[in-house]
């Protein structure tokens, strides 16, 4: 089983211009180690809808890899998105399912069928091009660069230890910059950053 840091630290190391969408238990830890305008917290937002929100970004921006750091509880709320991803033919989409078996944010209540679901197999059956399963840090760290750079859609199922993140708010006390403003304001920061980076590249 991996710690959250063992999942996130290699992403910081290998990230170049990827867009990262976080939700629930990954939101604060990612905000502590990343300060990019291309981070988007699907927090104070719609339950379970980070994976499909990230798909929308991926479809709008086929030139960039979009990585969604989803949880198992959130994934279970929108399993149909696995089919929508495949139907959309997005190849620049990477979906992490960080499986800690609980709804951590709301108090560690057990998710349905906790510990019994093979998310990588589900994604593969839906038609994902690439799927991975990791339960140890070393094999995951060795694969991260490949995961981020090869065409997908890709699903990565990781067994992670439950953390101690409480309910997420948006205010000045949050460490992650993307949580220190409203969802509406950060949406415009994110859009502007994408447009600015486009202008720099042309």
């Amino acid at each position, binding site marked *: 089983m991996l710690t959250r840091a063992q999942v996130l630290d290699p992403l910081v190391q290998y990230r170049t211009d990827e867009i990262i969408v976080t939700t629930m238990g990954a939101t604060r830890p990612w905000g502590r180690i990343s300060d990019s305008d291309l981070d*988007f917290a699907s927090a*104070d*937002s*719609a*339950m379970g*809808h*980070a994976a*499909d*929100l*990230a*798909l*929308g*970004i*991926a*479809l*709008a*921006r086929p030139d960039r890899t979009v990585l969604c750091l989803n949880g198992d509880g959130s994934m279970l709320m*929108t399993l*149909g*998105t696995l*089919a*929508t991803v495949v*139907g*959309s033919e997005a190849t620049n989409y990477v979906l992490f399912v960080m499986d800690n078996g609980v709804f951590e944010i709301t108090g560690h209540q057990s998710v349905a069928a906790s510990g019994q679901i093979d998310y990588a197999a589900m994604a593969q059956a839906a038609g994902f091009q690439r799927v991975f399963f990791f339960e140890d840090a070393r094999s995951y760290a060795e694969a991260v660069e490949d995961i981020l750079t090869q065409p997908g859609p890709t699903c990565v199922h990781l067994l992670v230890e439950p953390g101690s993140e409480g309910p997420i708010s948006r205010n000045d006390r949050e460490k992650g910059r993307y949580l220190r403003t409203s*969802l*509406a304001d950060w*949406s415009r920061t*994110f*859009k502007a950053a*994408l*447009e600015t980076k486009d202008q720099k590249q042309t």
Partner: protein
Amino acid sequence: MTKILHTLVAAGITHVVGLPDNTSAPLFDALSDHLWIRLVTVTREGEAFAIASGLWLGGASPLVVIQNTGLLESGDSLRGTAARMGAPIPILITGRGYSKMKEARLKPSDLRERDLLTRGDVDSVALLTEPTLEVWGVPFERCEGEDDPSTVLARTIDSARSTERPTAVVMARGLT
């Protein structure tokens, strides 16, 4: 359907995201191999709002097309994505049950009491659609009778953009 397609192209719509019903099926068919507008078919309507919001974040201009039954399924998604983000996303909602409501001489403003919601000759989704949009803070216009669907849809797209919020047209008639 040609007129609707022209409206979408003229308005710069890049993606149509949704789930078809009998009324919207011709539009989905026409978009399946469209040159400029990409069709994204979802498995459940709540997905449509999250995907459309992501498309907008990425610089695209999506239109959501769903039936009113699917609107009722979409509450938290619409609230937590497009509405919370202030995303200018137009929504075309096809109106199941409006003809029955008209035949029964009822209207959306009628009190939604048990006897009305359980009547066999009335489709309760039509009774609940507009009150739900009002409560959720989604401005809308109903398109019915002799109204021109393309004109009303164009107005809805303009309104969503000028007010920077999801805005709907309830299509209580066919699209053509």
